[in-house]
């Protein structure tokens, strides 16, 4: 019970179930004490396995898991001072809300009076007082989730691990419970690690977003970093909100380079300090979908826009405060413009219209090339 801090360090963590393929492949990551960290990635990317290894439900095949300065590999969850909230909540069906929450205290041998008092205090914290005598089956999804949260929190963990905690809820409740999770995290002041496959959930909640693919971390950083400055094509496409274009470098001149395009003059991209680009390289670049402006052919381009790509409108989706316009700008890839609603309806487009897709040169960002080795985090 020496662990008092909830900072976590994963060092070279690998996990293989069959001895052949690594489900988790050499993961290095530092999570600060009291941070809200979201692991995100498609199913099978190893995010849940990492969570279960931190929780003590799986042992890593290689590497170290350090919590509060202590290597916890081989320790039981209670010794790690972690607690897990399971995907389907895994509430004990034969116990009432109060007994479910008091379970951890019961197995520690705390007297009945003491543990029920402690459980009732926790029940009040998650606002379930009038449901204390119900069975899990008699609760709604949101209530069950609060019971699961309370049952995990009563062990006074330093780290709370949540396995897709919102996936069983409907959309409205999900948004509501999202705030509740964040509130609980602030109140408890402990580290939360949350696994999800929903981008919105991750960037809405997390201090630290960790994007994964095939057992490796693709990018780890603040929500805004990951969303606005994706490291490579995979992160840009997975997090959404970006158009990714690729091409061969045609010209490099000081502060920018030009990407060759079959159908147009070429795309000018500002050169970042660290990036090394030479003529002939195959490069991916990203432009945010809300940075794209659509101009009818023949009209003047907005200031700062050097590149314009002729496009045909493929589809239009009204999204409320913006309109999603899908274009055939790039032959094989998706290219989408998020046009503010008022701007769009000042001169509405229809499917089949030809427009020029343009953006301020400074909003284009080169992405890491796929051949480049994985950056260390």
């Amino acid at each position, binding site marked *: 019970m020496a662990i008092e801090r909830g900072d976590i360090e994963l060092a070279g963590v690998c996990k293989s179930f069959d001895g052949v393929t690594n489900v988790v492949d050499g993961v290095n990551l530092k999570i600060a004490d009291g941070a809200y960290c979201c692991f995100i990635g498609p199913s099978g990317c190893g995010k849940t396995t990492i969570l279960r290894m931190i*929780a003590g439900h799986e042992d890593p095949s290689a590497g170290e898991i350090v919590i509060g300065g202590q290597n916890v590999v081989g320790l039981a969850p209670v010794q790690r001072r972690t607690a897990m909230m399971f995907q*389907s909540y895994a509430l*004990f069906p*034969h116990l*009432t809300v109060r007994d479910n929450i008091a*379970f951890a205290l019961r*197995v520690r041998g705390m007297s009945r009076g003491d543990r029920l008092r402690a459980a009732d205090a926790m029940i009040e914290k998650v606002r379930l007082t009038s449901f204390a*005598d119900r069975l899990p089956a008699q609760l709604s999804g949101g209530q069950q989730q609060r019971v699961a949260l309370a049952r*995990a929190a009563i062990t006074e963990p330093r780290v709370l691990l949540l396995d897709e905690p919102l996936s069983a809820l409907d959309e409205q409740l999900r948004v509501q419970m999202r705030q509740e999770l964040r509130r609980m995290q602030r109140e408890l002041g402990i580290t939360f690690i949350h696994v999800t496959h929903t981008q919105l959930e991750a960037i809405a909640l997390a201090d630290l977003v960790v994007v994964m693919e095939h057992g490796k971390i693709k990018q780890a950083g603040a929500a805004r970093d990951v969303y606005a400055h994706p490291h490579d094509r995979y992160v840009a496409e997975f997090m959404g909100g970006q158009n990714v274009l690729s091409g061969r470098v045609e010209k490099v001149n000081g502060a920018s380079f030009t990407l060759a395009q079959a159908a147009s003059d070429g795309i000018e991209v500002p050169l970042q300090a660290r990036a090394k680009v030479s003529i002939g390289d195959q490069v991916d670049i990203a432009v945010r979908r809300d940075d794209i402006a659509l101009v009818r052919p023949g009209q003047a381009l907005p200031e700062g826009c050097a590149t314009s790509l002729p496009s045909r409108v493929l589809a239009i989706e009204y999204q409320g405060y913006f309109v999603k316009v899908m274009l055939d700008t790039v032959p094989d890839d998706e290219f989408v413009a998020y046009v503010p609603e008022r701007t769009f309806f000042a001169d509405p487009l229809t499917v089949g219209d030809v427009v020029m897709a343009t953006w301020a040169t400074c909003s284009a960002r080169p992405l890491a090339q796929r051949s480049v080795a994985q950056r260390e985090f």
Partner: protein
Amino acid sequence: MSAVTADMRDTIAPPSTKAIAPSKGNRPWTFYALATLFALYVLALYGPMICIYILSFQDIRGGLVFPMKGQSLHWFVDLFTQVRTGDVKGSFDRSIKLAVIVTIITVVISFLAGLGFRKRFWGDGVVFYMMIGSLVAPGLVLGLGTGLLFQALGLNASWYTSALGAQLSWTLPFGVLVMFAVMSRYNRAWDEAAYDLGASRWQTIWLVIVPVLAPGIVAVALFGFTLSYDEFARSLQTAGSLNTLPLEIWSMTLNVTSPSLYALGTVTTIISFIVIGASLGSIVLIQKRRGRAAEG
């Protein structure tokens, strides 16, 4: 076992029929056809037994066939006082004891097998089919073999050794199959949650697995008890010199020619119903207790 299923149907049916009750009046002709069929089925199921029960309540002039001669409890008294009817009390005693032992062993082993078979292991298929194999083996042959084996080994056959083993070959596969069905609804995440909250393996078994599976465990116990209490074929060659109740009844049919045989049938049926009632009652009680606020 027909009595069990019939009983379960009675207890389960009413709420559902209430919920889907159609408007009275215009019922299609198929309803009456099926109702008649069902009535005939029930009659065929219970008719023969009811004949026995009725005839057991005759007075001293009573015979083995209809018509009924008077009404009294004479043959019940006769059953427990007369020596000539056979060793009813002793065999009843042995049968109950044997059934209790069989029940305990069946419940414990089925439960452990259920836990074991949650994971795949080397040779699990072979173990499973070997077990099912003993279900399809003819009971008389199996009993005969057991008797022969005991003889060959120089052991005395008796109800608490060879008959116990022969009966277990019958009740265990049933118990394990029921347990598998019960276990399939057990969520492994409950084990993990218990471990996560600091429970030892032992605490997980006693505080989570057993209470969650309790209704299923009662069902296994019920199977074990009734299968053993009724068992005839496997016990015939293995019970040794002292009879179990079904064997005693069988030998009585050969040499007792009074309605006390029927009285015995009535008494054993009542006992069966008590056991079944107690089992189903305890399942209902467990479920009720879960409905109320109760510290498990």
